[in-house]
């Protein structure tokens, strides 16, 4: 497990989530350093979505603590939510509203100053100009992803949580989205936690990776460290080792 002597954007200690007799998250602890891009990896049922849900305040933990930017998320999440944002292809935006209307509403919800200028910036950065006044439901998957990304960046979040941000995108669009996310984090010093099944994406974007299996954190480190530790060539192979229960603990 990595122990970074750095300022933490996200600090999770002994986080547990049980649904009746089912344990979805079994006491995980980790830190996401400020300004880093961290990947949260694991197979289906590893507890990634539940963990992200708890980080966002959508799911109440059974026990454990979550601090984001120094704020207790369970007790005071409304203090920190204005500085966070979230993007997932599985959560839609109102389809009948135009892109501009959606961005206006979310900009107002997040209390963005000079909203028109911010929307104009995002329109330019994410190339939304050709469809900014079209209903969101009429857009292609790639265009919708760009709109979701614009919504996620509307408040210039300090912490950005992403759940498979490039799922169902063609390789070109996915590559473009990754590039933009990377640029955003570098430009604003933002912290990003990314759940993904795309190992090439993880290798390209992530400074650190958290490997989970059956609700437990089984390994962590930079992609290069993990590849070296497992004696593999790619993160894909490391992922398969971990998913199949062949994790290698530090020092072993």
């Amino acid at each position, binding site marked *: 497990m990595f*122990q*970074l*002597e*750095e*300022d*933490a954007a996200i*600090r999770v200690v002994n986080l547990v*989530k049980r*649904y009746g007799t089912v344990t*979805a998250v079994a006491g995980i602890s980790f*830190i996401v350093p400020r300004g880093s891009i961290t990947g949260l990896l694991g197979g289906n049922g590893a507890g990634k*979505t*539940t963990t992200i*849900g708890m980080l*966002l*305040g*959508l*799911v*109440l933990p059974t026990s454990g603590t979550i*601090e984001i*930017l*120094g*704020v*207790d998320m369970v007790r*005071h999440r*409304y*203090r*920190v*939510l*204005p*500085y*966070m*944002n*979230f993007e*997932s292809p599985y*959560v*839609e*935006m*109102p*389809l*009948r*509203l135009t892109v501009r*209307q959606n961005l*206006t*509403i*979310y900009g*107002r*919800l*997040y*209390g963005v*100053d000079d909203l028109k200028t911010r929307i104009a910036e995002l329109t330019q950065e994410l190339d939304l100009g050709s469809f900014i006044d079209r*209903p969101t439901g009429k857009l292609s998957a790639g265009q919708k992803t760009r709109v979701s990304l614009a*919504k996620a960046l509307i*408040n210039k979040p*300090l912490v950005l949580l992403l759940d498979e941000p490039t799922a169902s995108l063609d390789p070109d669009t996915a590559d473009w989205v990754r590039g933009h996310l990377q640029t955003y984090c570098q430009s604003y010093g933002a912290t990003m936690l990314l759940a993904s099944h795309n190992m090439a994406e993880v290798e390209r974007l992530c400074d650190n990776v958290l490997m989970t299996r059956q609700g437990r954190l089984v390994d962590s480190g930079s992609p290069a460290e993990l590849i070296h530790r497992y004696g593999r060539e790619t993160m894909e192979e490391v992922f398969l080792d971990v998913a199949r229960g062949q994790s290698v603990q530090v020092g072993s």
Partner: protein
Amino acid sequence: MMDVTQQPARRLPRLRHATGFSLARVGALVLRYLYLLRASWPRLFDLIYWPTVQLLMWGFLQIYLAQESGTLAQTVGVLLGSALLWDILFRGQLGFTISFLEEMYSRNLGHLMVSPLRPVELIAALMVMSVIRICIGLLPVTLLAWAYFGFNVYSMGLWLVAFFLNLILTSWAVGLFVCGLLLRYGLGAENIAWSLMFLFMPLACVYYPLAVLPGWLQPISMALAPTHVFEGMRSLLLHGVVRPEMMLSALGLNAIYFAIGALSFAWFHRDARRRGQLLSLGE
């Protein structure tokens, strides 16, 4: 390792409306629903269609009763008044709940729940929308009742305001409970949103006086705030007698209902978070 719990929240940059209740966030959500109404004529049509149908039905019944019996003729204003006030109650709850359902239909609730929008602000926006929806649906219908059937609901003056306030409070209380159910059980509970208010209809003495009910049922009816409103309206229209004590009783009952509605919403919301239901809303 740095202990981030020691970092005070004040280190975060200040944003507008970051803490506390924000009218700006309520306004943002109301704007979202207004955009939706503006973009969809069937939604607007639906707001006006059913109140108009109901008005026409009761209006023509009024004409028939007036022709058949002079005694019954004096009750016709009461029937139209009852129909219009019932629509405030029913449409108020629907306006509250449908706006919430729109978020579930569009699978947008997840985005809202992780935004700075607080549950109390969401509720405030739903209240505003229920009033807007009632106004869109009922204002033209009241004018039609006046122009075509000669019934001026506004002749009740300030008492109409008292009736409206009490009915809208009941509708919000029921709406809060229903939205809590939707949060907890998802769209599986949608039918309750459409039908729950009809539970009130036979017991709240909408179209007939309390005295019609059997003795054992009357205390149950009196425990419903709308009963006091409809009794008060009949007293005003039939006998010209105002019953302020009935409005106060209704207000007291509504305070209890609203507290129960708000507590149940808070409980269902917390239970949905505990069970992880908010991750899979809409299913």
